């Protein structure tokens, strides 16, 4: 019997490059980088078949730190470039990384179409609600009133909710996590990776220099349990430090409301059970904002459909079977030909 050398088990550090990481000390991006490297090691993904594509911004530096193939492109266009990569070679495992400006402002159109087409990539949206690399201007996800160098009197714009945008665009996988949820984030990333088709993961990320504490009202240790609901398919939407709060349908059935569960409250049966294939529920969960609601974390929506790249290649294969082998001479002669003697 042949003795086979067991394949070397890759560690998280094997997915790190020798390049010096150049984010500000304390940036949430470090934690996300670690979570991604840990996830890839857990999944033992082959490094040479993995490609990280990014646009421009702090988050977009990500590929330089991943020991995989990587393409740092131009502002907003990572999703479009990744679409080309998957068209040319659907075998590649493609991750797109971008910030809120890259993905929802200059590249908003490409994000919409990547999700609508259902290109088989994982799109990681690092949302810090600010432009970091250009030194602190408000972003499309900044809340009204945000003070920044370009909005000295406060922003008067209405922000985009990334998860709602993704659902509205027809995304088949929409999830949310945060840089500081070090146990939660890798699990969400694994689900995103397993999903065939476009999977959007919004990762709430703290910019320590320009927007420090933007999420602390629901991410700080003391308030986390009461201000976040971690959704799981098939489980009731219960949260709170004492697991005594839940989400139920309001009387008219078109909205969620927070209810006290158990003693002095409603019966557990009244609490909505998370169904990740229910797009309407996903919308309701995506739009919940403090202080009246907890922020929903986890896989809000997952309902797979054939991916764009798979359909394109299947169509090409069918055409090949129907039309036979390619023959350049035959192609040149297509249409009406005549001979001059």
């Amino acid at each position, binding site marked *: 019997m042949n003795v086979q050398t067991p394949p070397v088990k890759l560690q998280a550090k094997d997915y790190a490059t020798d390049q010096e990481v150049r984010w500000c000390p304390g940036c949430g991006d470090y934690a996300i980088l670690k979570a991604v490297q840990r996830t890839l090691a857990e999944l033992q993904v082959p490094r040479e078949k993995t490609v990280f594509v990014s646009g421009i911004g702090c988050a977009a530096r990500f590929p330089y730190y991943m020991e995989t193939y990587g393409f*740092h492109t131009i502002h907003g266009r990572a999703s479009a470039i990744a679409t*080309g990569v998957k068209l040319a070679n659907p075998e590649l495992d493609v991750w797109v990384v971008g910030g809120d400006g890259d993905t929802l402002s200059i590249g908003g159109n490409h994000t919409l179409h990547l999700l609508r087409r259902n290109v088989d990539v994982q799109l990681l949206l690092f949302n810090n609600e600010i432009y970091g690399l250009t030194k602190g201007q408000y972003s499309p996800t900044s809340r009204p009133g945000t003070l920044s160098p370009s909005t000295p009197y406060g922003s008067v714009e209405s922000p985009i909710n990334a998860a709602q945008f993704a659902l509205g665009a027809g995304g088949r996988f929409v999830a949310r996590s945060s840089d500081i949820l070090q146990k939660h984030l890798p699990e969400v990333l694994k689900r995103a990776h397993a999903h065939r088709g476009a999977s959007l993961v919004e990762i709430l990320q703290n910019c320590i220099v320009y927007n420090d504490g933007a999420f602390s009202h629901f991410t700080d240790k003391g308030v986390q349990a009461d201000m976040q609901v971690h959704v799981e398919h098939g489980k009731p939407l219960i949260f709170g430090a004492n697991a005594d709060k839940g989400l139920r349908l309001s009387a008219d059935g078109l909205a969620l409301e927070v209810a006290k569960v158990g003693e002095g409250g409603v019966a557990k049966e009244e609490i909505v059970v998370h169904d990740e294939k229910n797009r309407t529920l996903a919308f309701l969960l995506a739009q919940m904002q403090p202080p009246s609601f907890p922020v929903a974390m986890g896989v809000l929506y997952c309902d797979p459909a054939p991916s764009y790249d798979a359909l394109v290649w299947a169509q090409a294969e069918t055409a090949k079977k129907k039309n036979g082998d390619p023959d350049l001479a035959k192609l040149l002669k297509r249409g009406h030909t*005549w001979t001059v003697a």
Partner: protein
Amino acid sequence: MADSAAVDEHSAQARQELDSAVVRFAGDSGDGMQLTGSQFTLTAALAGNDLATFPDFPAEIRAPVGTTFGVSAFQINFGARTIKTSGDLLDVLVAMNPAALITNVADLKPGGICIVDAGAFNERNLVKAGYKTNPLEDGSLADNMRLVKIDMSRLTLEAVKPFGLSQKEALRSKNMWALGLVYWMYGRDRQATVKWLESRFRGKDGILGANVAALNAGHAFGETAEMPAEMAAFTVPAAPIPPGLYRTVTGTDAMALGLVAGTRLAGLRMCFCSYPITPASSLLHALAPLKEYDVLTFQAEDEIAAVAAAIGASYAGSLGITSSSGPGVALKGEAIGLAIAVELPLIVVNAQRAGPSTGMPTKTEQSDLYQAVYGRNGDAPVCVLAVSSPSDSFEVGMEAVRIATKYMTPVIVLTDGYLVNAAEPWRLPDAAKLKPIDVAFRTEAEGFHPFLRDQATLARPWVKPGTPDLIHRIGGLEKSYDTGHISYMPANHQRMTDARINKVLGIANDIPEQAVDNGAAGGRLAVVGWGSTYGPISRAVDNLRLAGKDVSHIHLRHIWPLARNLGALLGSYAKVLVPEMNKGQLLTVLRSEFLLPAEGLNKVTGKPFLIAEIEAAITRLLGE
């Protein structure tokens, strides 16, 4: 009877033999003038004529019926000699309504024949065309024109009566009636058109029958009716064409075939990514069905996504190609810069149209040469090629694939609205004899870094993601010449910028020296052209050389880098004339590169040059 005249056995009239003829069909955009012209073209080709065509259609898909902006026209020049342009002035104009007459009649030759559908000259149509009185009656048309008034509408309705169509449907066959008549005028066989109608209207017996009946009726009218004195019948013998297998191609057809041939010769999959824009979209349509030729097409959400996806495809080991017209290419500029910085192959086909901004989308121009050569931020060199005739697109398409892959560089291919739509006969090349294009993906890990350059070409290696042991990252940030890692070192940026520029300039050593298309190397005057001005320049120079003038024609395919001998070659003429459908863009490049006192001849009317315009400029420069 003279030898040059033949008698049609079915006609009492003698047919006059012609060397060449220019015919234009003009009508409402719903009148099927483009189809009529295409059929006439095919039949002329089958009769052995050389030919060139010029379709001229309105921007509106269905402009209001009868208006001047709804006029669609198709012009063909066909002959017993080599045909180089679609013709200056018309021998025959077929005008299906007053709007077609008013917008086209000025192009008729003195003494030319103008056939009108008198039935369409009703008050409503006259008003829409802007005629106060009926020009067929009021004597306002030129005296030396041979006006042939036929009520084609009525005759068509009569001919198709047995098929029980509505009046509206029946009148749709009017174009076939006109075509039948013009077929009779030139003694042409109707069989190819009948066959085409049979395949087009398969299963629609009534419509098929009506069209064939109208075609035959138009023809029969010529044969049997008592023709007005203005009418005449001609014969245009076959041209001395090199033997071989032929088909007609438009510039779009030939470009699609050239790109497919190139990628197949290189053993690559093509990823063609585009966004609809006039007049470039037809290339996407031509390539989309060719899936068995390893052609994947992607209609992107916008121009930027189209070029970005093409770059992504090239990164993944296919050949990414995008196409557009000037405004779309402007949007692609930043991404082309990325392809330059990461040194990936990319082909950008620009079907130029009249600008700036939206300009005149359906009209031709050559005004994107600056954009192609210079139009990006940073010192961002690309290779630029230009197509000079519809069939030349085949060669240029293959050449673009060769250069893009060998030099790991974007190649911009300039064609234009005239070339993409114009058709000409094309002698098919032997597919087995096309030269293979060597493309080698790097797999060797020893000594690898992503920007390690080939000493001869300065190209970096092409690596497919998925290749073990060659994992690396690339990006738009400046890279170290020695390691490929990000570098902001001052001397390194100088070195990398120089390397990128020298790589593209080095292509000049890998392309043919510039030849003189017609005439001597050196002399009194060189006429230098590029792109679709080939036809009129060629004919004008030919005509004047036959008249004994010392003038030569030089036509450029390689716009950047320029051929290595071009400066010396142009320096050997006392004068250089550069006719362009722009305000002098190649002229600027030639002056700047070679310090030449060249002169421009510039036309931006949305129409190709007339031969006469170029002849006049040559004569003026020769001081005669």
